[in-house]
């Protein structure tokens, strides 16, 4: 078996008494695009900085290619980082910025220049090679920062919210630049962001962090469809979270009874609910339906309509159930126009049983 490119083993990082990263374990394979996502202050940047050797773990080990990296100083690691602030050297030109890493590796002047220009060309900013950094636009600076990191031909590239300073159009453009680069170069990207759309659009795997520990690791689809816990369910948003008590369990399902009724939902591989446990489950808002007549199949909750929200052609309906809890459903505008919800007194929220996912209580 080949060792993974990166491995975090029970890594803890403390700043004085404050625990910024708590018992983090995960591996990254060569060639993967991994996104680390989570709310502000959850330890994403700290995790990335430890990987780059800019912070030392308080406990645990970080391995690269099976080698423990804890004592390897930052400048001896090939782990270039694209900084949130970009951290370009303001007193150098674009080309000199790109040459920096090569010069530090003792590459000759002519070769430095050739390779720097080659990368600037590849990033489509060759014409700005001899410009001062301060005279470049946000997107151009971004490309210089990428070129500066990639010119040293690393096996792994670390990115800390690299697109957060750009406007929405440019973000989309740069996303495609990044995914294309990652595919063409075949190197590993570790991408920190708190934007769900960035993470889900680009990553093969997403690591969700909350208050210093990992809440879930999985493909974007796993995380979206089968959040492992309440934090993830709320963080990815647009989920209905319903609680109750376990009344029945089978190999792959569990029945949960609460104030809204009794529902049968799916359990994950690692879940082991027991009868009598308090439990929660989630139903993604876009997998639920609404009807004005009581549906015959699946799970049903009778509700009243509170409000609706239009974003483009997608409508979100906010419903209230008998016990006062708020539920959401997302559907296409043209589906909605077929129904007459306004005059209906009761609206039935309905979903197929395989769309409900057990998340336990945490």
């Amino acid at each position: 078996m080949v060792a993974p490119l990166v491995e975090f083993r029970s890594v803890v990082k403390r700043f004085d008494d404050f625990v910024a990263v708590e018992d983090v374990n995960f591996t990254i394979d060569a060639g993967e695009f991994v996104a680390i996502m989570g709310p502000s202050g959850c330890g994403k940047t700290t995790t990335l900085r430890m990987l780059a050797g800019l912070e030392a773990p308080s406990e645990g080990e970080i391995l690269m290619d099976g080698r423990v990296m804890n004592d390897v100083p930052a400048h001896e690691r090939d782990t270039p980082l694209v900084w949130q602030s970009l951290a370009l050297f303001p007193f150098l030109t674009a080309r000199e910025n790109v040459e920096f890493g090569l010069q530090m590796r003792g590459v000759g002047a002519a070769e430095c220049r050739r390779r720097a220009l080659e990368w600037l060309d590849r990033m489509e900013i060759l014409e700005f090679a001899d410009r001062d950094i301060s005279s470049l636009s946000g997107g151009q600076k971004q490309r210089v920062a990428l070129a500066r990191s990639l010119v040293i031909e690393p096996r792994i590239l670390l990115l800390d919210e690299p697109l957060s300073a750009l406007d929405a159009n440019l973000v989309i453009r740069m996303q495609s630049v990044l995914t294309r680069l990652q595919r063409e170069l075949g190197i590993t990207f570790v991408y920190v962001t708190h934007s769900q759309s960035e993470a889900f659009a680009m990553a093969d795997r997403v690591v969700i962090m909350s208050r210093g520990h990992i809440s879930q690791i999985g493909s974007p689809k796993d995380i979206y469809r089968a959040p492992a816990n309440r934090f993830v369910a709320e963080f990815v948003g647009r989920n209905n979270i319903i609680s109750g008590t376990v009344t029945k369990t089978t190999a792959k399902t569990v029945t949960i009874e609460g104030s809204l009724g009794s529902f049968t939902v799916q359990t994950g591989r690692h879940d082991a609910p027991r009868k009598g446990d308090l439990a929660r489950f989630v139903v993604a808002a876009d997998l639920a339906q609404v009807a004005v007549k009581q549906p015959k199949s699946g799970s049903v909750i009778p509700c009243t309509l509170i409000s609706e929200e239009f974003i483009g052609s997608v409508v979100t309906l906010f419903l209230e159930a008998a016990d006062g809890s708020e539920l959401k459903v997302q559907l296409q505008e043209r589906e909605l126009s077929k129904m007459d919800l306004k005059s209906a007194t009761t609206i039935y929220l309905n979903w197929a049983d395989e769309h409900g996912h057990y998340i336990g209580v945490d």
Partner: protein
Amino acid sequence: MTDNRTLRWLLFGYLALVFVFIFAPILFSVIFSFNSDRFPTIPLGNFTLKWYQTVWNDPDVWEAARTSLTVSLSTATIATALGFATAYTDYRYSFRLKPIYLGLILLPPTIPLIIMALAMLAWFAKLGISGQVMSIIIAHSVLTAPFAMAIIRLRLSQMDPSLEAAAWNLGANEWSAMRRVIVPFCKPAIISSFCLTAAVSFDEFAISWFVSGLNKTIPVIILEIVTGNIDPQVNAIGSFVFLVSMTLVIIAQVVLMTRRKKEN
């Protein structure tokens, strides 16, 4: 509208007065340095370069100029190096006694010059190095290092905190990062701090007078000439000193300002 206008003229007049008060004595000193009369009276006599010639031919003045130049260049070098080191320490490290560290470093300019001068004299005498050019240099470095530190510290505070780490991340060790990133970033501040500390040292009188012994600097020799009798030579030397100081200060300002404009 008219009120506003009156106010503006009043303020303008006030500003003009301030400038007159500051610069009139210097201006007159410059004018009288070209005046043929021995006593500074109006109406002026004829235009003359005689006082400059006297100064030019005075070996004592030349000696003092040489001493002043040596002292101010050495002081500027030492003070800027010290200022850079202390400012970088403050930027890079956090430690418990930092407020005390900063307080101590910034202390010298708050001590009355005369006290500082006496203390220096006593201390140098004890060490057996009083009355040498080196003693003036040491004393001036102590006096001006805090200015250098303040200027360079301000520059470091404008630096993106990730910049140095970015250099490490790209393979620079501590020394390369210092040489290739920190120093170039601070270059405008280093140049201005060099010019300003040189200017302060060039003008400084009290300490120089106490510790210089036989190695007189320009301000010391000016006093000597004045105490002897009224001599327009002083105006000539004064104009020269003013020119040197102003040049240094203006260079310092221009270097700091052009850099700032470029980065915004």
